[in-house]
């Protein structure tokens, strides 16, 4: 008998309607209340919480995005070079005036990403991998910049839309790479980003 069979045999069959029972467990979950009329405000508050500690800039239209990014880099990132993913929508904007890097400068640079959605409840950014969205740059850069479209803001984690096609990885980012492993003291920039900057578009 294989290990699989042995384990499944010990666990035995199931009685009752499993799916109904599972659904019933999700009825009216306890969770922090979020005012649907104030999603952006709640999102901004959550980003400012100490465990997230992200900065936020509101950008009215996409055409102003490169200028906003340029300003942020000039003020906060001493090392030149920004990694832009090969995302058609991003690439169509005018990035002249910003030094672009084909890869993330190890341990110093900045990377930009476009979020699939964002969550007011926690200040989380939802990112999906795809042929135009690699994952690694977002964990290697010291400065992580993320574009969130206002219309993709949702109230709670349960409201994040399921992907049309399952990406290899979907990741929720709720802050920077931090550690409390030495004496419980919080230090930012353990392995990946030390700074997270959100550009809320629209």
């Amino acid at each position, binding site marked *: 008998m294989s290990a699989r069979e042995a384990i*499944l045999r010990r666990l035995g069959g199931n009685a009752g309607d499993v799916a109904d029972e599972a659904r019933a467990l999700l009825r009216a*979950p*306890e969770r*922090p209340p979020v005012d649907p009329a104030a999603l952006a405000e709640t999102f901004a508050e959550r980003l400012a919480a100490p465990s997230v500690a992200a900065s936020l800039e509101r950008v009215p239209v996409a055409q102003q995005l490169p200028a906003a990014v340029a300003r942020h880099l000039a003020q906060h990132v001493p090392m030149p070079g920004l990694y832009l993913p090969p995302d058609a929508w991003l690439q169509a904007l005018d990035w002249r005036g910003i030094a672009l890097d084909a890869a993330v400068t190890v341990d110093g640079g900045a990377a930009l990403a476009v979020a699939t959605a964002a969550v007011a409840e926690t200040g989380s950014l939802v990112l999906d991998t795809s042929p135009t969205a690699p994952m690694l740059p977002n964990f290697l850069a010291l400065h992580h910049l993320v574009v969130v479209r206002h219309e993709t803001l949702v109230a709670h984690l349960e409201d994040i839309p399921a992907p049309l096609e399952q990406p290899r*990885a979907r990741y929720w980012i709720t802050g920077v790479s931090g550690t*409390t492993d030495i004496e419980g003291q919080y230090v930012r920039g353990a*392995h990946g*980003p030390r700074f997270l900057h959100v550009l809320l578009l629209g």
Partner: protein
Amino acid sequence: MTAGFKARAAEALADPVLKVAVERTAGTAETKRAAAVAAFEDFEAARTRAAAIKDHVIAHLGHYLEQFEANAIAAGAQVHWAETADAACEIVLDICRRAGAKSVARSKSMLGEEIGLPHALAEAGIERVETDLAEHIIQLAGERPSHIVWPAMHKTREQVSTLFRARHAEPHAEETIAAMAQSARRHLRAAMLGADVGISGANFLLADSGAVCTVTNEGNAELSVVPPRVHIVTAGIEKLVPSMDHAVHLLRMLARSATGATLTQYTTFYTGPKRGADLDGPEEMHIVLIDNGRTKMRDEGLAEMLRCIRCGACMNHCVVFRQIGGHAYGGTYPGPMGAVLTPALDGLAASRDLPQACTMNGKCQEVCPVRIPLPTLLRGWREKSWREGLEPASTRGAVRLWAWAARQPWLYRFGSRLAVRGMRLFGGKWITSMPLASGWTRHRDLPAPQGRTFMEQYRERRR
């Protein structure tokens, strides 16, 4: 190991540095959790729901495992099953060998420790890079984790500093915790990116999509498993959840109970290997589903323990753990949850002291996000230990004598009257030493009984 626990606990109690280190981290964790729970309306109801979700999964575990397996395979992952720790290690080593792996990057997982994976990799001559900062510290020190969330909790900053200076090529220049973390960052970065295989655990396995969820503050899981060509997940079979929304509820509970955050910084759902045109990600994803005693626990009265989401709150709030730290427990898992798990994993004969090392103050059960009745489960082990005759003869004799006396009311009353008066001979208000009580009085004083026994007072008042 029985004699071992007492010796280790005594050693831990005598170590003033250890107590400072444990207090610093556990104290901070306790404060942060309290704030997070106070800010969450209905936390008590949320705990009940979390327990119900886990109970549902454990009752239908076979169903969910099969559903998860089918979806994971459909997404391109390879699923393996292991009944024992050794079988699990063998599967992992086999995948490593086939991948020609010289080095693996490992993202902290308690299950990996449970099955002895670090040791198995070393025996197979495969270099292991621990990427979690705390695991890196204890790897350098050649030690074992002392806490399930903060494995290096027992180390002070001074000790970490000495370690890094001796072992890092470019150590910190300044004596700050931030500078030490930077030193580790420099040291780990290259090793991590050059690994042939990445190994992670799983916080949750989502049955309806076949996704594996990991949760880290450091982002080290992602950095460990995205660059290598092969990703191996080792997961206990109890990690299943029906769907994303069930995982969401447990994630809310986990972050608040562990660190006091509303959500852990990096929460990632991996579904299969790299797709054709993806720009990064592993070419192979393997998931090893491990029993290692879990089906047996389910059938033998420990099903509630399978609810555990490894948040660490029970140990942070345990008066015994706060005194002796994690190493004294001697098993993979320390604290209250460890005292329940270790007898199941390592055998009761070798660990019968652990369920005894508990004051039954109930604090662990009060903070557990999935309402595990830890004191009740510990009491279960105590009873089993008694039934199986594992208690030493002196204890058995003394308890038998007491039980016999307690059944003779006149004798019992006479005995307690004698004891109350006799004990006063050893001290006025506090007894600092007394025959047969050295186990207590060596570390603290015993209040001397004042006045008479309860029964005497009761009778007097009734009059």
